[in-house]
């Protein structure tokens, strides 16, 4: 099958799943329902693209196909903030902090966290990505411990507010936030698009990339920043989807045996959109909302991750 055929199939799948979502079991008051569903589908695609782009780029920067940027501690920062506001304001939370306020503060905090992390690493002169990742993970574990402590103290009824935030969901979509997220995403894609070629160089490894005239450290910082924005936006929009990145990137590598990021990134966006749309459809129609999309994705993604780890050739 040629690359074009595969892309066409993916586009077709994305469109038909979107169509299914929009028109399946449409109630009588269809205008309102269609609008809601439209935003939901659009937000699934936006999140899919954010995760796809950030994961592919992150894996290229780390030269490693079993990592995803969301484990770097972003989600822990997000959860700590969500827990903290409920801890402070209790059931008043929604009155004190509006959805859009929450979105911007969450994105802001995650960005501050990412920048601190980068400063910490790059001040040392060397850019060891694994080191960056481990520091992020350890900070993440510390934050998670703090969140768990606060969650103990929170009143069980108010805990439900926190619990909702622990799982990604497309059903509490807020339309204002969606537009902000879309804006952030388009901005990142436009800025990042010009330099797609540089990613091909980075995938050759640090030494080869420098040899071929790439300002390696500058490129790495640039892409890490883009990744941070995209992960922050998608997490703040719907919540944590930790293992989706690993799943969709590796499917893409398998489907499109190429090194070219100009193909990999758009294709991964499509794969990712199909995965989310399909997963959400399963949640709604098969499981009847008895589970959440993040659980399905973490479950499948997690198992897939284990599979990847165990199949790694002994070096």
């Amino acid at each position, binding site marked *: 099958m040629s690359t074009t055929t595969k892309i066409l199939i993916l586009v077709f799948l994305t469109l038909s799943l979107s169509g299914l979502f929009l028109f399946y079991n449409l109630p009588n008051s269809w205008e309102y329902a269609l609008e809601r569903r439209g935003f939901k589908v659009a937000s699934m695609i936006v999140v899919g693209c954010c995760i796809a782009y950030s994961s592919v780029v992150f894996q290229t920067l780390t030269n490693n196909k079993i990592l995803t940027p969301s484990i770097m501690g972003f989600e822990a920062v997000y959860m700590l903030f969500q827990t903290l506001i409920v801890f402070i304001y209790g059931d008043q939370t929604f009155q004190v902090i509006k959805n859009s306020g929450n979105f911007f503060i969450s994105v802001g905090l995650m960005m501050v966290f990412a920048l601190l992390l980068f400063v910490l690493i790059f001040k*040392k002169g060397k850019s060891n990505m694994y080191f960056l990742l481990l520091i992020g993970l350890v900070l993440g574990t510390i934050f998670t411990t703090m969140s768990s402590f606060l969650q*103990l103290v929170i009143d069980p009824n108010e805990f439900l507010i926190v619990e909702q935030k622990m799982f990604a969901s497309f059903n509490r979509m807020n339309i204002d936030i969606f537009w902000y997220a879309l804006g952030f995403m388009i901005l990142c894609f436009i800025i990042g698009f010009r330099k797609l070629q540089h990613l091909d160089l980075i995938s050759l490894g640090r030494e080869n990339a420098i040899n071929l005239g790439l300002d390696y450290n500058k490129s790495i910082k640039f892409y890490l920043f883009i990744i941070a924005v995209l992960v922050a936006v998608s997490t703040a929009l719907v919540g944590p989807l930790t293992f989706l990145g690993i799943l969709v990137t590796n499917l893409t590598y398998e489907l499109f045996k190429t090194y070219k990021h100009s193909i990999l990134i758009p294709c991964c966006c499509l794969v990712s959109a199909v995965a989310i749309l399909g997963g959400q459809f399963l949640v709604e129609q098969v499981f009847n909302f008895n589970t959440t999309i993040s659980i399905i994705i973490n479950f499948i993604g*997690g198992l897939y*991750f284990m599979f990847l780890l165990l199949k790694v050739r002994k070096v």
Partner: protein
Amino acid sequence: MKISQLIILLFLLVILSIFVGVSDISLLNFLKWDEQQRLVMVISRIPRTAALILAGVGMSVCGLIMQQMTQNRFVSPTTAGSLDAAKMGILASLIFIPQAGLWFKSLFAFGFTFLASIIFLKIADRIRYRNVIFIPIVGLMFGGILNSITTFFAYKNDIVQNVNAWMMGDFSGVLQGQYELIYFSVPAVVITYLYANKFTLVGMGEDFSKNLGLNYRAVMNIGLFCVSLTVSVVVLTIGTIPFLGLVVPNIVSVLFGDNLKNTLPITAIFGAIFLLICDILGRLIIFPFEIPIGMTVGLIGGVIFLILLIRQRS
């Protein structure tokens, strides 16, 4: 610092730990204790201190052994998914056999931890030569997956908050008659001491240790058995204490070097000291309330680990 000084420090901390608490008990006039005070002593203070020592020793020794077996300084129950596996086991026992007693719970916790350790070692073995830092990353992700599965079932049964509450390491619930399970870590630690050098050899790889005439599988299994037993009884009686098994061996290695025969007892004592200090701090900071040990060690240990990581690079 010499071992004798550490022992004196440990002794002082034990005394302090016994006499810090909400009920005011004075050491000096112990002859004049009334019945109430004697009860507090026997039911709560002494068990708590004993549990602290055992957990501190057990978790630190476990960390050291795991580090030897993987030849990687950053591996520990926190960074190998063991804590998450124990948690998963406990939850599984609750869901499948709701009226399960302590024995069932420990059996489940032990089984899950053992299994997870085997899987982790298999993974670590395959990627050993790639990067020292990569293995703990994989371990933390592995733990993350186990955790997401646990959360999935907890969510279905609507006990997310409860599960998190049990799992937060906390010594305030340690009372006579409810904590004795932790004594199972004692034989594990003793076996570990006897096998210490063999674990190091096993860590050099299967071919290497076989060449030296070692029964690789058997030693590996003994190591995993001891680690899983200790981790599961500690998690069951106290809860998870993140970073403990990670930072204690690393601090000891910075202060005392890497000769296992010397450092194993030091690591054990140091683990107990570290945990006692964190616990006393947790009891004093917001007196008369207390901060659970999972939180204090998670914070202090995490920060120490970060410092170790950053120092190691420069």
